[in-house]
């Protein structure tokens, strides 16, 4: 080996490969924690599912609020636009979606940084350079042995990969507080629970459905025995729909909090179970759509029977 290093041409060759080897060996000895690109990809997919789930949830909430206001508006002296203001107005929902899309763009950028094609490109350039150094230094080892130049290229690729991964991890850790800040704010908008205080979208849904239940309780009191059966059915249905509606919002909230935790885990090189989060979100979206359909069917039924 020492004889090999003494040859002037081979010394040049060694100077090319030594720093690359040092980085790879250091990584192997110390144990580099790396960001899993697939994990970042799954996190991005979950964000996209949350975007879809949010649209469905806000739509269902707005339709519920709109329907519940009819009786209240009917008692007002005049009809005003503000009386029909939705629970989540379009400008606010647009901001919500923009925040989710900012997170998707962020995840996509991390994926690009971790893409093997980028480090493969650097590897090819390192291979080209090592071949050229071999020619310049008149080193027969590099000129004649294409396999060695290719190996140096692969080494360069690994170093580039490690550098990209290290950078991705550093940037993800740096952004972690901001990413969590956005997701936690979204969760608080749906339901903030602080000691005895509860505020947000969930209490609005609960108060709306509880008013409907109180109206049915009153109808039951004054109804004949023959009419009561139908009221009981409507009451049970309203209870179930209240629980489904609040359940849908709470599921979205849980999904957002899971995404915050998953970001920290991915930045720290831990692999979490993001796939199950996405599958749960898909089920919640289907549930939300069913809620909207039920609300629309009820409205159509009411309209067919005359405006109240």
């Amino acid at each position, binding site marked *: 080996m020492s004889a090999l290093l003494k040859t002037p041409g081979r010394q040049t060759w060694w100077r090319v490969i030594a720093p690359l080897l040092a980085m790879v060996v250091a990584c192997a000895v110390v144990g580099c924690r790396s960001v899993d690109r697939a994990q970042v990809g799954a996190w991005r997919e979950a964000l996209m599912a949350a975007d879809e789930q949010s649209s469905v949830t806000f739509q269902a909430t707005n339709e519920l609020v709109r329907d519940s206001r009819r009786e209240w508006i009917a008692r007002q002296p005049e009809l005003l636009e503000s009386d029909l203001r939705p629970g989540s107005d379009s400008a606010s929902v647009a901001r919500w979606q923009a925040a989710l899309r900012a997170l998707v763009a962020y995840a996509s950028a991390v994926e690009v940084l971790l893409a093997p094609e980028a480090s493969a490109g650097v590897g090819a350039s390192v291979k080209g350079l090592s071949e*050229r150094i071999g020619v310049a230094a008149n080193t027969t080892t590099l000129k004649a042995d294409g396999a060695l130049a290719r190996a140096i290229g692969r080494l360069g690729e690994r170093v580039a990969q490690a550098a990209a991964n290290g950078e991705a991890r550093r940037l993800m850790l740096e952004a972690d507080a901001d990413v969590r800040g956005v997701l936690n704010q979204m969760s608080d908008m749906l339901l903030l629970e602080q000691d005895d205080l509860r505020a947000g979208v969930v209490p609005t849904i609960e108060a709306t459905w509880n008013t409907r239940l109180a109206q049915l309780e009153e109808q039951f009191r004054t109804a004949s025995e023959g009419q009561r059966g139908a009221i009981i059915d409507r009451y049970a249905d309203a209870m179930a729909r209240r629980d489904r509606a609040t359940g849908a919002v709470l599921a979205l909230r849980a999904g957002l909090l899971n995404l915050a935790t998953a970001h920290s885990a991915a930045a720290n090189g831990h692999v979490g179970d993001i796939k199950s989060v996405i599958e749960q979100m898909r089920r919640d979206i289907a549930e939300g759509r069913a809620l909207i359909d039920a609300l629309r069917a009820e409205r159509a039924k009411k309209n067919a029977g005359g405006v109240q």
Partner: protein
Amino acid sequence: MNIALMQTQDRLVKTHARLRERLRQEDDAQVRRALLNELTEIMARVQMVGAVLFAEQSAQLDAKAAAVKIATTKINKAIRDMQSMRDLLDAISGFLALVDEAIDLAKLAML
């Protein structure tokens, strides 16, 4: 966070729950009708305060999302830096190739 607005919504919801309980215990039909109307009034206000709260929180969300956009810019710079490294390596290879050609020409001239 607008705590005052949150507390207002929370108080309205709690009043709504108390009124509903009171309604269950009331025997007078006229009082019950009045209580039911009050319940609807409170519900409408819970919804209105909730809507204002949501709009206000979404503005705060906008500011927080701006920090994520800055993080994305930093990642995009890292991607560009990697491309620059590749460009630099290719440029050095190209330069060495040119030098090699010049050396070969010089060698030929010496023959």
